[in-house]
């Protein structure tokens, strides 16, 4: 596909969104049976499944840490998730995405509660539409909570980018391919940044504005994550009210 002539026209993007509008998000907590915790999440055209196993024994054993749990994150894209079939298995991109995603979540996990054990997070991208790492982190964060892993808070993630000299939230595929900048961010509800990457072209001022936009979006996503968890767990309590 060739570059559309304009990615944004009079404040409306190709998919009809305003610059500061997220794509629709659907969350299903506990979508899998075998995993200790799981979450299925859709973000626009992205469909991701996250599963958490653990705390459990570490294999291989030499990876174990004597004073805390080892957290592992495997981001993987299904071969059919993209236009051109992707060769299965980890490539350099997914290894990097796995590393930064793990680092985005580790600060909220009480790793020191589980020395010599492993907390394994698996994220499978079933369909990709730009923003898979942010969708994965959002889902993984919920899956960790669903698995009952003690956490300081959830982590929420969203990308900000620049298309046709306008800052926009949550880039779609065309905006990602033909835009001028892409900046995925993850943060805790109290505003600590746990993931920050950027490529493209941003001035200092644009960067500051982009970070503020990401903050606002992460707050919105946090509310959705929280609501999804409350929905699952409040319905499991007999006749009880939602505990705030």
């Amino acid at each position, binding site marked *: 596909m060739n570059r559309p002539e304009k990615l944004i026209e009079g404040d409306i993007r190709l998919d009809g969104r305003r610059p500061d509008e997220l794509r629709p998000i659907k969350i299903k907590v506990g979508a899998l049976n075998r995993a200790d915790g799981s979450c299925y999440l859709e973000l626009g055209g992205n469909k991701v499944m996250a599963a958490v196993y653990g705390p459990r024994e570490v294999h291989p054993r030499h990876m174990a840490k004597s*004073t805390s749990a080892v957290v592992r994150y495997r981001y993987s894209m299904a071969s059919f998730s993209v236009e051109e079939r992707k060769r299965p298995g980890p490539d350099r991109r997914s290894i990097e995405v796995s590393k930064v995603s793990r680092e985005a979540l580790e600060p909220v996990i009480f790793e020191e509660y589980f020395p010599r054990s492993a907390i394994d997070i698996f994220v499978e991208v079933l369909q990709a539409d730009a923003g898979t790492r942010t969708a994965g982190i959002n889902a993984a964060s919920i899956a960790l909570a669903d698995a009952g892993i003690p956490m300081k808070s959830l982590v929420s993630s969203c990308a900000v980018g620049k298309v046709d000299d306008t800052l926009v939230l949550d880039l779609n595929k065309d905006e990602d391919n033909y835009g001028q900048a892409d900046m995925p961010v993850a943060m805790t509800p109290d505003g600590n940044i746990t993931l*920050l990457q950027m490529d493209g072209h941003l001035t200092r001022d644009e960067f500051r504005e982009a970070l503020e936009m990401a903050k606002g979006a992460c707050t919105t996503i946090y509310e959705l994550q929280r609501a999804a968890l409350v929905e699952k767990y409040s319905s499991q309590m007999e006749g009880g009210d939602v505990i705030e």
Partner: protein
Amino acid sequence: MSLSDEVMTELRKDYIYNLMVKGEREDGRAFDQYREITIDTNVIERAEGSARVQLGDTLLVVGVKIQPGAPFPDTPDQGVIITNLELIPLASPVFEAGPPREDAIELARVVDRGVRESGAIDLSKLCITPGEKVWMVFIDVHVLDDGGNIMDAAALGAIASLLTAKVPAKRFNIGEEDMDVPMRDVPVSITAVDIGGTIMLDPSLDEESIAGTKLTVTSNQEGAISAMQKSGVHPLTTEQISYIVDIAIDKAKEIREKFLVI
């Protein structure tokens, strides 16, 4: 990590933290001061471009090889950049042989994004026959001694090599004369760490190993940001990030003017 390593890390952390409280660093530098930088270019005659970079105790060699190849289907009229970096066991007791691990892959990809996203190379000028043949630029970083902050040293070496590299048109019977690599920009990467709330640039090996997080900011000639990467478990605040971005852009300008004049 063995328990003794964990104890040593804690001791080092205390030492560096206590210095930081007094406003000092273990090697006497100011918090925003880089270690001494030496860049020698064209150190490998066989390579189309090369640079040896010494950044404090860190030593590495970057070699650029350029040869014809097939373009990517989605960019049929553009040259190709491929960046590789390996943390070979020669460079540190903690590096192991084998395929690159996530740290090496991350470093290579951040170097690559700095060069690519700043538009440093005019890739359209590296097209030979659209859709069939283009120049492929291979940037290989060979770390020889890990003294901390491989990231910035590798990025410096990559851009210094490219600035002096020649496209070997004659050797491949593609042109009469070899040409310079078509450079449009000179991105510079600056890496900062947060140690106990204090931001330090160009971390030494010890500082790097105890810091929870590094933030690398690559900026171009006009002072815009081309690439960023937070690496590490410790979170950063918006204020810290904003501060690092500001000093990184200024420091990049300083280093560019001193070492990378086109």
